[in-house]
């Protein structure tokens, strides 16, 4: 039931998707599903941690727009992702900081006016995460899992359409459909289908850039909740990889620091 304006979970999910789904992707005509996914993986930047500065635009069902700026740190270690997000503007949310560790198992919120960090509890993996349309389980889905069944549904002039069926029985998604760019091998769009096979969410990468190693970096991401008619657009302004972060960076102490 929490803030749709609290876009950190959305970013969390986007990042996971970018980290994982992009790695699924793949190759040219006549390629098998696995080959396509390998090709996408090849185009994915590999890193241990990253720092992203981004602008987030939230558009609600009444077309009300809210813009926020944030800085975000991500670390992946032993398949466990930790994320620290701090809002920079507007003033009303300045320095509000969220920390998620162990794939969202522990989430803390620091609100500067109160000076104390609080743990945000998630009662159920399948419940919505902090009032967003994303659930806690979204954070822990391993889209790369070899156990997931994948099938090439269609090949158009520009895209491969791959259906991914998760192996977990208790997952609240029946399937995902990935739209992979045939020319540049990256995931352009992901569709999320619930257990009734109803399309609930879509994620689209609308703009990309290539780094010096010709790896793909998504620069504009749009996430749409079909049910709530709510949209989140993320414009990445700056992205850095493999920073020298202290070992205790992803802790409550960091959240409380005035400057990161």
């Amino acid at each position: 039931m929490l803030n749709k304006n609290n876009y950190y979970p959305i970013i969390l999910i986007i990042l996971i998707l970018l980290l994982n789904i992009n790695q699924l992707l793949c190759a040219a005509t006549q390629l098998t599903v696995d080959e396509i996914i390998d090709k996408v993986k090849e185009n994915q930047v590999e890193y241990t941690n990253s720092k992203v500065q981004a602008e987030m635009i939230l558009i609600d069902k009444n077309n009300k727009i809210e813009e926020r700026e944030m800085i975000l740190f991500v670390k992946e270690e032993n398949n466990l992702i930790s994320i620290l997000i701090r809002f920079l503007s507007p003033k009303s949310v300045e320095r509000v900081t969220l920390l998620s560790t162990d794939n969202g198992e522990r989430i803390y919120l620091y609100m500067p006016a109160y000076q104390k960090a609080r743990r945000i509890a998630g009662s159920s993996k399948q419940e919505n995460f902090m009032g967003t349309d994303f659930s806690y389980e979204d954070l822990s889905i391993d889209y790369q899992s070899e156990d997931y069944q994948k099938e090439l549904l269609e090949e158009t002039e520009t895209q491969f359409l791959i259906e991914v069926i998760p192996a977990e029985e208790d997952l609240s998604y029946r399937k995902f459909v990935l739209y992979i760019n045939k020319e540049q091998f990256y995931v352009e769009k992901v569709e999320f289908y619930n257990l009734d096979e109803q399309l609930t969410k879509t994620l689209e990468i609308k703009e990309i850039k290539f780094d010096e190693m010709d790896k793909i970096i998504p620069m504009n991401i749009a996430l749409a909740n079909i049910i709530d008619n709510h949209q989140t657009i993320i414009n990445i302004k700056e992205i850095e990889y493999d920073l020298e972060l202290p070992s205790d960076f992803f802790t409550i102490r960091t959240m409380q620091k005035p400057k990161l």
Partner: protein
Amino acid sequence: MNKLTEFISRHAKLIMVLVLLLTLLSFTQIKNLKVEDDITKYLAENDPEIVFYQEISNKFGRYEENITLVSLEYQDLFTLENLENFKLISEELEKSNYIISVDSFLNMPKIISSDYGIEIRDFVEVFPETEEEVQELKESALNDNMIRGTYLSADGQVGLLMVKSPDNVDSTFLREDLEEIINKYGNNLVKVEYIGFPVIDVQINEMARDNMSLASLATLVVLALLFYCFRSIPGTFLPISIALITSFWLLSSIASTGKTVTIVISAIPVLMIALVTAYGIHFTSRYYEERNLFPPQEAIKRTIVSVFMPILMSALTTMAGFVSLTTAVIRPMTEFGIFATIGILLSFFLTIFFLGAFFNTFISKKVPPNFSLEANDLITRLLKVIAQSIFSKKNWILGTIIIIITISGIFALQVKPDSSIEGRLGENNPITKTMDYFKEKLGGVDFLYIYITADNVKHPYILRSMDKIQNYASHLPSLSQPSSITTFLAQLNAAMENKKIIPANPSKIDNLWFLAGDNDYINSMLADENQSTIIQIRARELTSNALNKSIEELEKFIQTIPHTVSAIDLASLPSPEKEPYFSYIIENIISSWQANGLKIDLQQEEELQKKLRQIATLPNEYFYSTQEEFITEILQISTLELEDLGISTKALQPILFEYLNNYYLENQFLAILSQKLNLSLEDAQYLTEIITDSLSIVAEREKIRYAQTEIESILNTQLNEENADYLWYLTDDYVYVPDTQGEINFSGRLTGIPVIINEVNNSVFQGQIKSMLAAFIIVFILMTWQFGSLLTGFIAMIPIVCTILTAFGIMGIAKISLNIGTMMVASIAIGAGIDYTIHFINRCKQELAKNKELLVAIKITLTSTGRAIAFNSLSVAAGAFVLTLSEIKMISEFAGLIGWVMLISVVYTLLLLPLLLKYTKFKEERC
């Protein structure tokens, strides 16, 4: 007139066919007639209160037109089986095409907090799986102020579903769908009740149709009377056919425009039968009189010539009564007045043209002999007695009338307006009973709203003022369960820092908003880019003196709160400069207590101010303690940071004790921490900061506990939880000082159905006076014009004035309130009742013209025209009394009063008018 009679004679068959065709056509349209009874549509669309209410409703999505409340009662809702059933029904309803959403206590927001964690989620996020879990849920739900008495009855048996449907949903389909789903799944239910605009709409339509169908019964009653009077088939059926045809035409023309009409319109068919039948009676009886003397064509001509003017006059005065209703700016009255006027006009033309054409087409061979004059029935015998004794018993008659009028006048003063739905529909109406059920179990169904506007309603000062207003409201009679964003924000603040208050620091509000901003309830309470919000208060009754007084007091209270203030940041001031501002904090605490119902006398107030000032100046250090509980509390609120640092509370506890026991300075504490816990300097510094912050928080808590004990000893009573929480204001870091030039300001205004009902009640009262005066003036002018004499015009009005006074007396005695139904009685009585006076005076004049003595003329009038008048009033009253069977109280009362008024009117006409005519030298004045 000759041209008219010739026209009717020449086109008799065409007139008949046209009337029949139009009537057949009207049958096809009547089924489309849509009735609604929405109080917000009673006043003019541009009425300031209505405009304001609509604006607020649209802004905050509280357009109650789309909300249906469904109560599901179980033997005990809190068993696993019943709770699952409740959830299932809620889920199945949400699948309906006629429903957008279903809210219940299951998806109300709940804040769960501990000293280190916070969770905001649906009240029932994880559905209980065992009976024990169900009982835990029950306890939690019944202890939640946002749920108990609102979404859940206090006995835990009734759960409320708030069903939101799309705009313009077909109410009948919605109701059917609701019933179908609930009947299918609700095997465990003890009782189901539905309320809200969509379902009321269906019920009102059904009741209105029932009213209209009462017209059949009224027809039978009037038919019986007519048969008794005419003893002929055409004489029985023709007069009533005019009323029926008029009603069909009228209702079908309303239906064909696609307009909705209010419930009073449903009284039109019966009223037409009662009022309009008289025209047919006059026409038919006159025709039979003439037919006994002349051939058919001549008899028709003579009939039309002789009845045209009297019926026209009668129609004009009745129309005057109805037209006067349009002077009241209340929509149901205006539309009733307009449609009834059209109906009377139509019936006049139908009487002349249709009956004229009928007798032209179907020439009766057999005519009832000596139709009226020579009759010797009970009424005629009674009239003869009156004629014989009226002048000898004049003192007795006048005395009795004066007593009746005096008593009536006294009781008339007790008549009060009541436009509530209970007042309109009656205590025993199914809708009222359902409303009573909701009132008893779930605190009522209607809301009073306080609309708050400010540059930013999320400002702490505005929120605290709202908190004060809603607390004050909750202690007023007839009002309960106020809610606003403040309730939720105070709960969130409690979760964040254990203080269930609105924090004084604007940054904290910003932070809380970030945490709660996506909550649907919270979002629905804000509008205009955070510049407006509402406080929602349940009204136990929709109208009552108590409620009106509460509304008045609430308006006054809002004015007592400073509307413009300046903010002082205490944290930026050195200690000595802070002290002068403590008085504002203390004043805020005391006024918050008073608003929340705490009784404080002047002496106590002085003591409280003194004590609170003393406590406010005490530093936190004064409350440091080495007690185990104190230390444990510090460790508890540092749990997250300690976990982060990997330090156990067990290891830290003795160090903390040492620190507090020896009054160490912070740098000494830092050194001990570093040494005993083997921490780096950086870690030790961090831990010192954490512990000193926590220490300050716990000391603050001690200070407030101490304050509570001291205050309770002054007041000699224990503070309840809410009032104890206001002591947290002593820790405020911002103070708001009244300042006309201040940068923070707000305004508050009341609206809602109770306010509109109040407005309607005022309009009803004013409308009553206006319409009655208008009817009186129009009829007086008509009378003066007809009789060619101001004095006669004045005398003619006296019986009707007495009738109205008596009618109001009856209303006072029978405790009948003034509503849009009953307020029409006086105007209609003037318009319709005056007919008797006209007939009486006309006949009297005719007799005087024959050079008879006044007394003789009056006696003849009494036994001739008097009889016709008596039958006429009996037929009107009989028709009207049928409508007293209506399920709708205002229609039933309206009809009953009309019936009585017509009977009383005839009594005053036959007893008082002859005396007045005698005393006013009527003869000399000349007719």
